[in-house]
């Protein structure tokens, strides 16, 4: 188990390094932040002076080394636009994004698991069809469309919930629903499928033959086995969730990392983008690490791979 853990941690670090390098290269290729910061009538000298101040006039590989060196210490430099430590800016916003992501995750699980189980148990009947219809419709709706529709119907027309911004739990509902729907849809379908697969297997038939109550069969034996792929999906979908967060945070004026990262890319604020992407990637990787460990604990076969 220990060796497994160590291997996974090394893997994580490697991935982190890869992500960071990818960001570095992509950003440097995509444009010059000094040009985006100055008003249109800046002279060539002013641009050069600003570039010097921002440290952009040094050769690329030196910039990379310097960047890595400070990144390890948690120093991503100062945001070009905001004149504040980039890492601090990102950390400030992280709780908001995590709050949203977890709310969406929890909402999705709470809705999707029962739906999937119901669909599997009542396979082929009305409940199944309804549940799966909801799932496919959910997957077919773009995030921003759902957000706008929810604001229009629930907030403006019905007046039940606030339109945007972060605040009490009421502010969390619409963004969490928007963000969580795609995930809920795929989770529901996956739950149904993997539960069906498990229900068809031998040990379930045996349990039924032994005369165990149907409920017990489902809950204790089938679900535990079906849990594995579901847990995996949660880990993987976290990445998509973060992607959807970008759009959701913009529509609902949610002060999270996704929104900050997008804004920063649009103005080429390298330090913030680097810090933001790394933080998001690390969250994703950390979550998957947890999932892997869980997986390893649940299924001994995996550990010996």
């Amino acid at each position, binding site marked *: 188990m220990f060796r497994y853990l160590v291997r996974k941690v090394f893997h994580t670090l490697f991935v982190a390094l890869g992500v960071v390098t990818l960001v570095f290269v992509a950003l440097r290729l995509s444009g010059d932040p000094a040009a985006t910061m*100055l008003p249109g009538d800046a002279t060539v000298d*002013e641009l050069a002076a600003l570039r010097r101040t921002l440290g952009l006039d040094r050769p690329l590989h030196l910039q990379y080394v310097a960047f890595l060196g400070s990144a390890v210490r948690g120093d991503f430099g100062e945001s070009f636009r905001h004149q504040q430590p980039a890492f601090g800016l990102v950390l400030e916003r992280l709780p908001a994004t995590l709050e949203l992501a977890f709310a969406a995750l929890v909402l999705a699980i709470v809705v999707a698991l029962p739906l999937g189980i119901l669909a599997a148990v009542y396979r082929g009947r009305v409940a199944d069809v309804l549940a799966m219809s909801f799932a496919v419709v959910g997957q077919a709706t773009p995030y921003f469309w759902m957000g706008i529709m929810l*604001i229009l119907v629930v907030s403006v027309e019905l007046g039940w919930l606030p*339109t945007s911004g972060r605040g009490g739990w009421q502010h969390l509902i619409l963004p969490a629903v928007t963000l969580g729907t795609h995930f809920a849809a795929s989770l529901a379908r996956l739950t149904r499928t993997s539960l069906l697969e498990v229900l068809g297997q031998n040990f379930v038939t045996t349990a039924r033959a032994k005369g165990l109550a149907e409920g017990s069969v489902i809950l204790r034996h089938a679900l535990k086995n079906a849990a594995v792929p579901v847990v995996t999906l949660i880990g993987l979908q976290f990445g998509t969730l973060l992607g959807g967060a970008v759009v959701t945070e*913009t529509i609902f004026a949610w002060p999270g990392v996704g929104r900050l990262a997008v804004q920063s890319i649009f103005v080429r604020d390298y330090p913030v983008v680097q810090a933001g992407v790394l933080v998001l990637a690390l969250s994703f990787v950390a979550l998957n690490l947890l999932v892997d460990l869980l997986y390893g604990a649940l299924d001994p076969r995996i550990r010996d791979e």
Partner: protein
Amino acid sequence: MTNPWTRRRFLAMASAGTLTAVARPASAQKRTEVIISQPADAVTLDPGRTTQVLTVNYFVNLYDTLTRWDAALKLGPGLATAWKSNGETTWEVTLRAGVKFHDGTPLTAEDVKAVYDRNIAPGKTVVTAGFATIESVQVLSPTSLRIVTKKPDPLIPVRMAQMGGQIYPARYATDDGARELARKPVGSGAYRFVEWLKDDRMVMDVNRDWWGWNGKPPSVERVIWKPIPDDFARLSALQRGEVDVITNVPPDQMKIVRTVTVPATRTVAFAMNSTQPPLADKRVRQALHYAMDIQSIVKNLFAGQGRPMSGGVADTDFGYNPALQAYPYEPERAKKLLAEAGFAGGVDVTLYAGSGTIVNDKQLLEAIADMWSKVGIRAKVEMMEMATRTKMVNDRNLPANGILMINPQSTLLDADGSLWRLLHPNGFNGKYWIGSQPGQRFHDLMEQARFTLDARKRKDLYMEATRLIHEEKPWLEMFQEVVIYGVSRKVSFKPRPDYRLIAAEMTVAR
């Protein structure tokens, strides 16, 4: 034919009553507050580090300038009570006595000098261009100073009021100090900084010791800024009463909310690279205008919120020429001009714009391209990401026969701060039009006006210069913008043409 929403509305009305009271926490409004929503949050609270219109709105409430424009755009005293030119390159400025910063320290000429020195130094701020004519600032006493210019500059009083002229304590004029200022601003303005949760909200409380109240008790005690980037969400927030004032209302959405409007200092135009044929020929450039039905565009795409113009200067600026009208829509004349110039077979150009330059920018380009296609002007439409567009501007990279949407601000309410700022040889459009070059009539007129102290003479120079623009059309001229604010019933204020939202000018119904 029934409105599909009516039934829902009825249901909503029934439920909203009970649920709204529950859903929205009872606001403990012991003070009158105004909640303002713009599409973007402030980038920084250091007035020297950005010229972004939306961020300037924060500055004008937190800080003061030496002179300032009132709601009718008349220049008046601010932190300075008197200013006098000696006729050449020196200005004597007297400061108001007894002004204190929000942290209690007194505002003196030393602070003004520190700020201006920082603005003049290359590379320290992004507002250097507007202060470029200043040679030095000398402190004569705690309440008086002398500004020395390189050449006679008639615009010094106006320069004192522009962006970047906001005064803060001298200790923040260093690199480290500026960093702190960017987060925790200290000014002398009508409102003091309380807190800032980025992208979430910023809170300002009234400064009862502000010199500008003039005996009238302030109506707004607290200002809360809540940035909401998405147009739909921002409008919905106003509809639901979650915010009181919103900016950047798309003209199409005006019927949904209560609005106030005023013609503004900004114009919509397109810079053109006319260094090569076909755009090098004045007749082709004129044809572009005749082939465009600007009235229809303003009426249909901008809900009538815009004033078609010609001559390059908005009616809010000194140097505006009221005799010049926008070209009428005459597609036949356009075709004739093209043929005369030798392009009977049509021309090819490219229309560029940065996404988000103005509302409906993409639709505007599409509409123009569509209209032009009817007379043989084939325009390719290219929307660019803002950063790419800014890079094109700063690198001076507009391709030949490229036409780029610009939205020039008038920084000085004078043709010098709008028209000349961009058409100056160093300015963005400068290298794309021969008329900007030294030795050309337009260049000489504007250069001369910049250093002429006699107002009447300046006016004559500007009249001739604008006539030249009207004739030569180095820019594709469109219209003067109209500022549109969405307001709730609770708030009233006179909207300013210079896009500034000054809370001290608002009144709140209790």
